[in-house]
């Protein structure tokens, strides 16, 4: 992108910061303060929002704004004006970039209050026409010669910088070779790209990446360069380039899980031009799916200290919670008001031991409760009916089986599991927890007892929650106000809520860090609370 486009983008970011503290102010859309209309909106592949319409003359062409629709968003508007015959007298048509996190939505009333006074406003017509980016591109090109105010060329450069994704060709007149070794992607946030670039004639200033229909922009200041002597055979005698050929860059953009195809890297040069290189699809790895979360730290060790970390954390939490809350009921348990929900350990030996222990504990009861096995992909699916049969024989009731994304983080799925089973009271046994006999007996007695207060069994030693007896209502209320941890301490906050049960449990797994990234996210959550 041309330097003027970069300047405009930076300027809008600064203006958006000015608008941020104004979001809470009272807004009133008085008819006499109507300053124009937003008639058309477009969202380019980088996620940026472009608007067209008309506006009173004499107003600034870059200004902070507060958008009011379903919610309020602080932002900034940069536009250029040009004459148009149908615009009321004193007004001019405009094309502008709306820099905010507002997303176009056709059915919503949109008011764009102009800061800092927040009295004048632009109103979105209803329905607000949403067009393709190409329409905006054409309009800018058509009206640029008549531009009377505003940074028309800068806006054109900004819009154009993401529009060409044709692979770099030697016919372009300059050499550029690049490769992405790993592209770690996180829907809702963006990606971490690791690779190398050799551009002997044009210094590289930054990167962006296109995935599917979305463009991820390099986060300013996130570019890390390092030596890559291993690519010397590709670059010829370019020792200075090799010293900084390697790169890591953080890229942000509105990436959806459906976008993870046809990856392309765009290298931006100091002269404002850019060149594209296709990325091997095998380099694309979804964080938390193909690579462990902590692999991100190998790529970007200072992640948790960066200004973009809260956005990364929010995206990861949203991604994880959405999948962790999903439940697939394979076999329904016997209808029961009181239910044992046992998270099945991943190791088959542990699963056998759990069922053996639980069956023994159930046989000690005159009226054993129903049981549901909660398993995830780490458990042998084919083994589950065998385990369920053993428990059904011990309890005298049909044993249910439900599959979740991660049985070691069951709290998000638990309410749905209980609903499917029609149960109000539950005893949750944490995955890999093996209570002692006293612990089993106390936990089951608590489940069958009248007291509805939460009771918890602890792991021996420094371990956390091994079993929890509570009610569905109680749990849901707690979940509404206490987001469970993503990391190893997932359910441990419940220990503060629940009275201790006698006995303890051993764990089949050594105490491990639940992951540094998740720990950092949980810490962020705690600090925010």
């Amino acid at each position, binding site marked *: 992108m041309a330097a003027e486009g970069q300047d405009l983008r930076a300027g809008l970011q600064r203006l958006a910061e000015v608008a941020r503290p104004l979001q809470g102010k009272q807004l009133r859309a008085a008819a006499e303060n109507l300053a124009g209309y937003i008639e058309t909106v477009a969202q380019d592949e980088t996620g940026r929002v472009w608007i067209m319409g008309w506006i009173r003359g004499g107003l600034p062409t870059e200004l902070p704004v507060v958008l009011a629709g379903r919610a309020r968003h602080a932002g900034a508007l940069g536009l250029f004006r040009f004459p148009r015959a149908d615009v009321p007298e004193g007004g001019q048509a405009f094309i502008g970039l709306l820099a905010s996190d507002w997303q176009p939505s056709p059915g919503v009333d949109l008011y764009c209050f102009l800061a800092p006074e927040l009295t004048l406003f632009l109103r979105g017509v209803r329905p607000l026409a949403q067009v393709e980016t190409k329409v905006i591109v054409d309009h800018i090109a058509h009206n640029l010669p008549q531009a009377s105010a505003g940074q028309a060329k800068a806006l054109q450069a900004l819009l154009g910088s993401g529009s060409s994704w044709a692979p770099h060709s030697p016919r372009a007149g300059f050499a550029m070779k690049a490769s992405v070794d790993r592209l770690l992607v996180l829907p809702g946030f963006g990606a971490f790209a690791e690779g190398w670039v050799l551009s002997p004639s044009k210094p590289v200033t930054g990167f962006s990446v296109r995935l599917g229909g979305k463009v991820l922009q390099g986060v300013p200041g996130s570019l890390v360069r390092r030596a890559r002597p291993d690519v010397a055979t590709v670059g010829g005698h370019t020792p200075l380039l090799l010293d900084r050929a390697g790169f890591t860059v953080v890229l942000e953009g509105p990436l959806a899980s459906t976008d993870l195809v046809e990856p392309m890297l765009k290298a931006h040069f100091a002269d404002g031009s850019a060149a594209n290189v296709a990325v091997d699809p095998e380099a694309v790895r979804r964080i938390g799916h193909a690579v462990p979360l902590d692999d991100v730290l190998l790529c970007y060790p200072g992640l948790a200290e960066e200004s973009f970390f809260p956005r990364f954390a929010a995206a990861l939490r949203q991604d994880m919670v959405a999948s962790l809350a999903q439940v697939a009921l394979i076999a329904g348990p016997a209808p029961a008001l009181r239910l044992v929900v046992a998270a099945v350990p991943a190791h088959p030996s542990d699963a056998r031991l759990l069922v*053996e222990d639980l069956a023994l504990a159930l046989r000690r009861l005159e009226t054993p409760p129903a049981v549901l096995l909660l398993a995830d992909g780490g458990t042998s699916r084919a083994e589950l009916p065998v385990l369920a049969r053993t428990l059904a024989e011990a309890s005298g009731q049909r044993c249910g089986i439900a599959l979740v994304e991660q049985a070691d983080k069951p709290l998000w799925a638990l309410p749905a599991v209980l609903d499917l089973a029609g149960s109000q009271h539950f005893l949750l046994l944490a995955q890999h927890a093996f209570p002692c006999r006293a612990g089993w007996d106390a936990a089951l007695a608590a489940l069958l007892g009248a007291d509805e207060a939460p009771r918890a069994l602890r792991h021996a030693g420094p371990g956390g929650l091994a079993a929890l007896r509570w009610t569905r209502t109680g749990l849901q209320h707690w979940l509404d106000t206490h987001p469970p941890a993503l990391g190893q301490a997932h359910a441990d906050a419940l220990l503060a809520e629940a009275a201790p049960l006698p006995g303890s449990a051993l764990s089949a797994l050594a105490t491990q860090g639940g992951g540094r990234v998740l720990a950092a996210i949980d810490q962020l959550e705690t600090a925010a609370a």
Partner: protein
Amino acid sequence: MSFAPPIAVISHAHPSISKGGAEIAAHTLYQGLRALGVPAIFIAAVPEAERHRLDLGADEYAVFHAQERYEHLYQLAEPAVARQLCAVLDATGAEQLVFHHFLWLGLNSLRDALALPGRRGLLVLHEFLAQCHHHGQMITATTQLPCSSATPSRCGNCFPTLGRPRFELRRRLVGEVFDQLDGFVSPSRFLAERYVAWGLPAERVHVVENGLLHPGQPAPPRPAAGRFVFGFFGQLNPFKGVDVLLGAAERLASAAEIEIRIHGNIIGLPEALVARLDRLAESLPQLRFMGAYENDQVGALMAECDYVLVPSIWWENSPVVIQEAYAAGRPVICTGIGGMAEKVVPGVTGLHFRRNDAGDLAQVMQSAADPALLAKLQAGLPRPADAPTMARHYLAAMGLPTAAAEAEAPQAARKPRRAGTKQPA
């Protein structure tokens, strides 16, 4: 004293299916009890797949299991195995239970059986399975070195993919089941001491040597025929030191005065070792692979040897083959560790060599090829216990009167035997 409720001798295998030392010892105890006139039943765990080979005698029962469904880390059988065992105990009324091994039966079967009203239990320790996940051998899984102490930490290091906490769970489970038992029998002092060091109360551990069903009379020394014959008898599995023996055979290639005979089944040997055995048996004139044998032939086959070799690389407990060698009048050359070292007194009943040291074994065999030494060792051999003697010691360990048993023997022996269901559903 009445023995009306029979004693149940419960084994992990039946001798008609396999002939390991533990099931032979268990069946010998059963026969010994019956020889004393003590009502006894024999219950064996039998693989479903071997059902067609099963040959049950009077008052013998089988509980069937699927080997592939056995859980080896925590030693758990399928619940159906425990149910079958309890059904037999219910049907026969057996109250005193003598478990030989818990493999295939599972700790859960022992737990359930011992939880039946009025049951008392004794567990015969045949190896270290309660302590050691590596086939109960106390040999490290990766380096194959002898291990002297099983702790969750050490076991977790031995099996890093399992980790220490699982061995804590295993230890807890074993402890819970062992707490239900009245006592333990070890056929060697060595094993008993190891279990006491591991945590069993010394007062609950009894040392009772295995007996032989038909010890017979020792064979006379072989006539001097110019060659000394060294025989190996038993299962040719890796822990029995076949590799060591073959290494010694290679070193003795030019020793014309020595012949080595290997008797046994090839079980679980790596293909490379089987190939080596075949190749050496063909290329070394003094090495002969004799193949499998029936148990009742062992005395005659040993009588054709001068020495019996026991080159095991694990500790062993009280290998039946040593008792059989003594019964046949043949000294034993064994690895100088564990139960073998206890049973073979060097210079008196046999000779020792260094563990896993083929060169040392070859040297010891060469030194043993001496008529005077052979005669001296043959003169020092003890007489193994017979089945009734073994049974008497077990009765004592159970706190049952041995004298009364013998006094009542004629009467008990006249009691009609229960028909019983041989193969409970």
